[in-house]
């Protein structure tokens, strides 16, 4: 029963998070394209740039209106499905989430209101300022969410208190400037910029292939190609930084991503392709490039990257240390003045989470057997094959987009992209890639954090609320049904307005004008 509650709660959160993340990257990216288009309009006064801002802004608005509600349900789930998690880490996790909600509500939403209803009611410069603030608000929302998420990956600036049975913040600056959060933020927003650029590039290519709204599409294509090329380069460079911070803080995740079962002499080789065999804890076969992993993962030629077998051996020791922490905590819950227990907890506090991993095998953690310790140590490694392939698919698609944007940017510099139907068709076909990359990126980040909700601190199975399986199935079905309807509505609206093109503005300047 408990296993089902844990798995169903995880599934529900994964479904809502992955669904929510279909909307977020487009919002984050499109908003800066709107800033660029409107800035050109304000600077040059050319009408087509205002039309571009209004038309792409309309598609942005559809995405925002349908997507924004889906994030709220995730915040509700912290209270309903993850009550123990919320109590345990609420002191740290709650602050950035609250700031994000306030920022999204008051800055982002208000500026979006001004963007849509402020045309002809504000001066050009005032409206541009509202658009810029909308972009800043959208990106700052992402910052606070990723500070919260970065803390889940690398819990810095906090300490466990046995009196309150929760983590308490000791250093807000450390939480704010957490290297994981910073690397994750810039990598994620850059991925959003690529998504926005790909959206505009693909739809503009479609207009050009059909010979519709040519001038409008040419200008949109050019902006998207330049912005997309810069963004995709940023994603790759910042992804490398994000990978480096993972190597520093989450060795298990890095080892699983690389299917690196054994520690190699430095610098380690990179498994370009492999077939991870999790039962044997070996790769059946692999194609490796010498040195590359060591250089990427440690930025040195002398530092080793630990393999999975060696990490499991280290974690066995941490579990033994954690058993002493749990025993001390049990004593302190009975007698809060026991000095010996206080000293023991202080010594082994950093391994408390590892001791708690044994809870799924025994109620009496302090006397866990060696097979139980071995099993718990094995549990500290996330599933290798899904991590290995998710990461490689993400990188492969990222490289495809790099080539596409480089080609599109080069052709737009030359001014001959209209005569290159292959480029336009490729741009159209690549439309789903940024979304697939973003979803796979989240799989790597979140699935790779297992078996923890807070890495090294709180096991997932101790984070869930005591709910019934029936209620979880009910709410899961509700979410899937409601979100499916939203997705269908989004797709239909997007297709309708994309098909109509700038003609949907009713200005009389474009093809396929709608009656107004």
């Amino acid at each position, binding site marked *: 029963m408990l296993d089902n509650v844990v798995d169903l709660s995880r599934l529900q959160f994964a479904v809502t998070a992955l669904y929510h993340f279909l909307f977020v990257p487009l919002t984050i990216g499109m908003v800066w394209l709107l800033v660029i288009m409107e800035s050109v309009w304000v600077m040059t006064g050319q009408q087509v740039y205002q039309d571009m801002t209004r038309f792409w802004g309309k598609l942005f608005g559809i995405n925002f209106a349908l997507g924004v509600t889906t994030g709220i349900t995730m915040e509700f789930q912290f*209270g309903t499905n993850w009550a123990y998690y919320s109590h345990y880490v609420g002191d740290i996790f709650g602050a950035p989430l609250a700031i994000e909600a306030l920022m999204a509500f008051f800055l982002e939403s208000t500026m979006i209101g001004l963007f849509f209803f402020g045309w002809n009611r504000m001066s050009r410069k005032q409206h541009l300022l509202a658009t810029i603030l909308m972009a800043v608000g959208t990106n700052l929302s992402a910052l606070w969410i990723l500070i919260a998420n970065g803390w889940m990956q690398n819990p810095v600036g906090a300490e466990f208190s046995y009196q*309150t049975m929760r983590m308490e913040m000791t250093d807000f600056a450390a939480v704010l400037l957490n290297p994981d959060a910073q690397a994750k933020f810039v990598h994620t927003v850059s991925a959003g910029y690529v998504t926005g650029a790909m959206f505009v590039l693909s739809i503009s290519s479609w207009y050009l292939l059909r010979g519709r709204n040519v001038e409008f599409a040419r200008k949109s294509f050019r902006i998207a190609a330049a912005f997309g090329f810069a963004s995709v380069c940023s994603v790759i460079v910042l992804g490398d930084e994000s990978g480096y911070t993972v190597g520093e803080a989450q060795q298990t995740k890095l080892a699983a991503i690389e299917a690196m079962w054994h520690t190699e002499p430095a610098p380690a080789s990179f498994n370009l392709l492999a077939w991870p065999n999790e039962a044997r804890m070996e790769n059946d076969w692999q194609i490796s490039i010498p040195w590359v992993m060591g250089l990427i993962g440690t930025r040195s030629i002398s530092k080793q990257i630990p393999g999975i077998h060696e990490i499991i051996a280290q974690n066995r020791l941490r579990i033994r240390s954690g058993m002493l922490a749990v025993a001390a905590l049990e004593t302190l819950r009975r007698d809060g003045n026991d000095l010996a227990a206080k000293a023991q907890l202080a010594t082994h506090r950093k391994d408390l989470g590892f001791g708690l991993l044994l809870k799924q095998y025994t109620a009496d953690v302090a006397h866990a057997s060696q097979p139980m310790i071995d099993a718990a140590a094995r549990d500290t490694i996330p599933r290798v094959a899904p991590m290995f392939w998710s990461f490689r698919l993400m990188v492969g698609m990222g490289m495809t987009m790099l080539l596409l944007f480089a080609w599109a940017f080069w052709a737009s510099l030359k001014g001959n992209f209209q005569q290159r139907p292959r480029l336009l068709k490729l741009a159209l076909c690549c439309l789903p890639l940024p979304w697939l990359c973003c979803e796979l990126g989240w799989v790597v980040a979140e699935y790779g954090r297992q078996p923890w909700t807070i890495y090294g601190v709180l096991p997932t199975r101790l984070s869930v609320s005591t709910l019934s399986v029936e209620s979880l199935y009910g709410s899961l079905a509700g979410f899937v049904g409601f979100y499916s309807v939203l997705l269908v509505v989004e797709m239909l609206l997007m297709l309708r307005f994309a098909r109509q093109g700038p003609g949907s503005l009713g200005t009389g300047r474009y093809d396929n004008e709608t009656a107004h």
Partner: protein
Amino acid sequence: MKKTPRKLSRELAWIIGIKVVLLLIIWKAFVAPNHVHVDAASVADNMLEATPASQHLEKNNAR
């Protein structure tokens, strides 16, 4: 017809107000009734006295 900035700000205030009311309704209808009470004692119970999954299953099957 051009609307005055005062009218626009009134419209935006209405929109924000409606959004607050909708959020409160969602909260009252779907979230508040499912409140899960958690405090230090219940976390200690959950963490330190939780029955392992295997035993939990055996108990449920025996029922």
